[in-house]
């Protein structure tokens, strides 16, 4: 028999494959039965973990499609640390590439929004050098992202969305207290936050905001960010 340690590598290869078998077994269950059970437990564990993060994607593509995507993602994308919360960052790109989902153009952006929300939920109670709270994220899309996300929170009650009529969106995400908050930003405010998230100075952010939306006063963004507890000016 293999050493216990090369056996672990064989086990992993078997459960992550479609038809491989765990070697060196005996007892009441055939290798096919034991492999099927562990394969299912492991892949369903990954599916459940991803579903907790990507609830809107689950709703948009349905249980069967989500399971197929989650299994394929788990097989192709190793989880490299013991914290399950850290797994799933590459789902947006994966959804954009996978044959089952790549035709749904807005899916990757919805996934980006959900990952940003997940990160914001777990972010440190600290402020970055830019002065922004570490939970602050900005996700920009050619699709009505926040409307899509809100639709997924209340799928029975919301009326259908006209994606073409609604147009693009810039969604701001932060978690100043316990709850993750989201709202759509106008052009100027989005440019202001984008600049700060790109580590530009407040002056550069102000210029970018005015360039994007002539006539606005970026001082109001600063005031409301401070009031909301998501900005502390650095000395």
């Amino acid at each position, binding site marked *: *028999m293999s*050493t*216990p*340690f090369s*056996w*672990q*590598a064989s*086990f*992993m290869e078997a*459960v992550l494959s479609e038809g491989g078998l*765990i070697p*060196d*077994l*005996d*007892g*009441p*269950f*055939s290798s*096919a*039965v*034991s492999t*099927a*059970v*562990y394969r*299912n*437990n*492991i892949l369903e*564990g*990954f599916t*459940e*973990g991803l579903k907790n993060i990507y609830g809107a994607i689950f709703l948009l593509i349905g249980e069967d499609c989500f399971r197929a995507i989650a299994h394929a993602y788990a097989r192709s994308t*190793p*989880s*490299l*640390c*013991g*914290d*399950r*919360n850290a*797994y799933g960052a590459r789902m947006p790109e994966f959804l954009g590439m996978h044959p089952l989902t790549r035709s749904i153009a807005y899916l990757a952006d919805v996934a980006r929004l959900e990952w940003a929300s997940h990160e914001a*939920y*777990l*972010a*440190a*109670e*600290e402020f970055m050098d830019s002065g922004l709270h*570490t*939970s602050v994220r900005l996700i920009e899309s050619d699709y009505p992202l926040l409307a899509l996300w809100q639709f997924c929170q209340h799928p029975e009650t919301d009326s259908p969305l006209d994606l073409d009529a609604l147009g693009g969106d810039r969604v701001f995400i932060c*978690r100043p207290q*316990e*709850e993750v908050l989201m709202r759509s930003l106008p052009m100027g405010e989005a440019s202001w936050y984008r600049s700060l998230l790109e580590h530009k100075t407040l002056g550069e952010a102000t210029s970018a905001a005015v360039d994007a939306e002539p006539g606005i006063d970026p001082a109001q963004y600063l005031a409301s960010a401070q009031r909301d507890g998501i900005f502390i000016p650095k000395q």
Partner: protein
Amino acid sequence: MAYAATEPSFQTLSNNAIPAAAGIGLRACHYHAFQSGKPEIAWVEAHSENLFADGGLVHRVMRQVRQEYPLSLHGVSLSLGSADPINMDYLHKLRQVITRYEPGLVSEHLCWVSSRGRYLHDLLPIPYTEAMLRHVSDRIDQVQNFLKRPILIENVSAYLQFATEQMPEWAFLNALVRNTGCGLLLDINNLYVSSRNLGIRQEEYLANIDGAAVQEIHLAGFSVENALGQDILIDTHSQPVWPEVWSLYGQSLQVLGRKVPTLIEWDANIPPIERLLHEANTAEQVLEEMP
């Protein structure tokens, strides 16, 4: 170097000792119940990895919970049986969480979770051989030295049997206690599942396990599933504790001859907290029959 559980420098602080009563696992869907009230329960257990988050709600809830209840920490990703070196990044985070929340007990599983750096996030079985015993003993030593406290080791459910000659699971666990001074977390549901799946004899297991080392018990509900035409019990934590497991729990306490802190685990299809407290109350009634 082995740590005896009685080593004075590792005694837990008196205000966070886990009482010999029923507790429940803290899950995100019940955070609100703990924030808005004080559920009637003797102690709570949290998954160590959930507290690896940099910030956010989990820490707000945990700060409050820790002020009101004794807390134990239960890890699922230390991967003690893996061929990989112990993940020091993981161990540093675990030590930070322990320093922050001062849990009364810290536990992990007798299993492997990762191989060649890749995590499967499942509790996978190891063969109970002499070579594996040396390997796992060395790693428990390493962890306990780093954390400067003993940990509890839990038996997991098994859905396969190795072809290699092995010692019984109870003998392996007892040897770990002797070699390292670790304690044991006896999962009665896992014992029941493995006994039904693989024919492990429950009476022999209970009669031989090092009872003095058992510092915590876990109870949960398994599922019966069908794999390629064969019925198999799966440790899903998705249901109430089954009557057969309650009965094995009563038997276990009789053999151990004392009350032991007992946790109700529920991780899938999690019901409202009242249902969980009801299960804990059932465990409490069994405990109260003990001297």
